[in-house]
């Protein structure tokens, strides 16, 4: 282990209270893996997200949700019923010592329990509170109920994703999978919280953050909005490549092993690119007529665009496995890539060089599992998974007895009365 790996993470010393379901749990993970002490507060019996699969060995159980495991690493977990007087009281005590509260309840819910920001800041003026909700705290849609798919529809993702008619006739707009509406919301919430924390290091002042998942999604379609604002053009869906106002040449080609390669060729076809492309194809004896000097004339290139893309590039990729095309092309400076399934990344040598995959111990199971690692390497304050996701109420005693000074008898009484 190098010296840097033993250093604390960049957010060491921060206490975060997380009251979050699927909408905000990734934000808590981002902060916990970077060293913050994230206390996840679940209702007695556990958060609903524990009921979402897949499950360990496909056995549905709140301690076996891989969805919950993944998004709750590096957190400690306590249970608390905020709808009881004792629960409110305990929460106020925790909030008095917290740096950040992250919550995803419907707008107005915490205020209805006298736990809104204005109340909590009275005892903690440096407190930062981020409400991450589907639509924010105001507006005609603020009480609408949603899901990942709904956000991808209203946010504009679906209007940009789908198929050329030739690939899938009458296909619907497609919402990419993986729960990315929540990721988009959490990335922006993280930015807002960090900005508030930086401001607090200078001024000591906390603040309230009203973050909207719908707005985060609506921001995440690259040039679709500028295309409309500046040219009044509405983009159309194209298989595996950028949306555009009109039809564009394909960039996704089937490989010999039945997979696909993303090869961005159109739009780059100039004489120098053709020369490099001819060398790449020729190294497999597939250059066809591309070495002909006539292709050093841009007009000839343009006139033969379909021949170059559909026949020469298409046939080249069709003759090789996707991974081989990927590495052969990148080695020659082509920005091409194999379309891989997520699990193929476990075999990626480059990720292994960067020690990307992490072994995370689950001591109650006597087993450890491989988890994905960091988006970025911090050379002075490393990212790390400090522990697997908490079991239900795993840290009740640490927090309520160890920090708030309750006796184990009081803790037992709170459990009996379903406060924790």
């Amino acid at each position, binding site marked *: 282990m190098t010296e840097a790996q033993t250093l604390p993470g*960049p957010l060491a010393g921060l206490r975060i209270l997380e009251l979050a379901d699927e909408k905000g749990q990734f934000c808590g993970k981002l902060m916990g893996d970077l060293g913050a002490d994230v206390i996840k507060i679940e209702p007695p019996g556990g958060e609903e997200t524990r009921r979402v699969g897949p499950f360990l060995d496909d056995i549905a159980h709140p301690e076996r949700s891989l969805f919950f495991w*993944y998004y709750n690493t590096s957190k400690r977990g306590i249970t608390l019923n905020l709808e009881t007087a004792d629960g409110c009281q305990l929460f106020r005590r925790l909030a008095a010592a917290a740096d950040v509260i992250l919550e995803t309840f419907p707008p107005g819910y915490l205020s209805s329990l006298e736990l809104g920001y204005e109340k909590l800041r009275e005892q903690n003026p440096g407190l930062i509170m981020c409400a991450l909700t589907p639509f924010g705290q105001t*507006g005609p849609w603020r009480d609408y*109920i949603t899901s*990942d798919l709904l956000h*991808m529809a*209203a946010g*504009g993702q679906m*209007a940009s*994703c789908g*198929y050329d008619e030739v690939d*899938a006739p009458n*296909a619907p707009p497609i919402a*990419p*999978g*993986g*729960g990315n509406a929540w990721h988009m919301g959490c*990335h922006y919430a993280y930015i807002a919280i960090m900005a508030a*924390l930086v*401001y607090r290091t200078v001024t000591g002042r906390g603040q309230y*953050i009203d*973050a*909207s998942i719908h*707005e985060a999604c*609506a*921001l995440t*379609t*690259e*040039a*679709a*909005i500028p*295309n*409309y*604002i*500046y040219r009044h053009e509405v983009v*159309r*869906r194209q*298989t*595996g*490549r*950028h949306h555009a106002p009109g039809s564009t040449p394909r960039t*996704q080609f089937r490989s010999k092993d039945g997979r*696909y390669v*993303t090869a*961005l060729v159109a739009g780059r076809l100039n004489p120098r690119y053709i020369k490099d492309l001819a060398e790449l194809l020729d190294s497999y004896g597939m250059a066809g007529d591309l070495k002909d000097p006539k292709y050093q004339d841009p007009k000839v290139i343009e006139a033969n665009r379909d021949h170059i893309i559909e026949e020469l590039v298409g046939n080249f990729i069709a003759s090789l496995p996707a991974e081989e095309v*990927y590495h052969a092309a990148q080695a020659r400076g082509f920005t091409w890539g*194999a379309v891989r*399934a997520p*699990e193929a990344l*476990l075999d990626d040598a480059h990720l292994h*060089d*960067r020690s990307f995959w992490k072994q995370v111990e689950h001591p109650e199971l006597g087993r450890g599992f*491989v988890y994905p690692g*960091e*988006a*970025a390497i*911090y*050379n*002075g*304050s490393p990212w790390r998974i400090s522990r697997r996701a908490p079991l239900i109420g795993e840290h009740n005693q640490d927090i309520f007895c160890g920090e708030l000074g309750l006796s184990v008898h009081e803790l037992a009484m709170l459990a009996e009365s379903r406060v924790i």
Partner: protein
Amino acid sequence: MQEHDAMSLPRALDGIRVVDFSWVRAGPWATRWLGALGAEIIKIEWPENERGRLPSSTTPQDVEVNLNTSGNFNDTNVNKRSLSLNVRTPKGLEIVKRLIAISDIVIENFSSRVLRNWGLGYEELCKLKPDIVYVSMSGYGHTGRHHHYTTFGPVAQAVSGLTFISGLPDKPPAGWGWSYMDDTGGMYGAMCALTGLYHRNMTGQGQHIDQAQMIASVPLTGPALLDFTVNGRASRRDGFPPGNRAHWPGTPLVNNYRGPTVAPHNAYRTHPGDYNDWCVLVCHSDEEWQRLVQVMGQPAWATTPKFATLAGRLQHQEEMDEGIEAWSMTLDKYELTERCQAAGVRALPVQSSEDRVEHDPQLRHRQMYREMEHPALGVRKLQNAPFKLSETPAVNHLPSPLIGQHTREIVEGLLGCSHAELLAGYADGTFWPTTRARYAYMEEMLR
């Protein structure tokens, strides 16, 4: 909050200065947010190898295409100032070093060795500013055997598994219709910069943060990866990805990583059936399904017992979806949304860019798109932050810079050079290529 109120409040990053070498999209999207939060962003550009301002497919039809008229550039580069500078000359490098010495953050999204080859690797940056926060945003990171590989958003998405998880079963991947990882890579750039800045303020220590576009994509498929590393189940399987559904009929009944495995969970055509006339509907429980049946007016097909349970709805999805679409086709997507939501049913419209800007009542209420005047593009709407900070609002406050627009104020005002030195720098090609025509605002600067 009204705009003039927001303008008078402090900003979270007041007093923070960023030397921004970034180009194209992901890096500029990162510094856009640091700028919105109040940091002073100095965008270092050179017209001879500019990538981001040209070519432009977003210049208005009635405006001349040049380095200052890209709409997408304008939206991506608000809240910044521009210094045109040839960093590849000793004099230009010296100027940039003086800037770094009085800055807090250096950020770039070149491939892995570019800054080091300029003599501006992390060790050199530390000599100029010991507590510098250096964020590099390359395709594959600065270490590892493929550090020299290059990406655009679509390639990062393909290689990392993100493209694969989007589409219909037995079809090619539909992927992402834009550079999702330019947007998201930009977010990570900003996240890294803010995290490094917070750490510096707390400890006095700077650091190098080596962010990588392809690698940042991988943690976004976490549950699919754990299904493989824990259960041994690959996502390359029958019925995956399941389009907009949570489960594809006739394939093994397993979770597909978008939340609970429920039905209905799909997109449906709406009246009048044009290209973007679609809505999505999801029922998370039998109760929500019964509410939808009520909203649909209790058609006979929907009240048959086979649809009353989740198992039945999953088994008979095709028939159920046909029935729902026969009803949804009779309504406009916004009317359908209002009716469903009023009854407690999860429904929203598929919205195009035009829908979001013109028709979405929520985005209008939240002032998502506010107008600002740009010197070459006129008054245009810009996208604003999706969060409201009560003490330090992140409302856009500067239009994107014209290329080299702020060279004089940075060189003379910030670095304290004389006007004669500025003139000399234009004469010797440090601040603008001597062979290239100058814009009128540059002539103004040189008076």
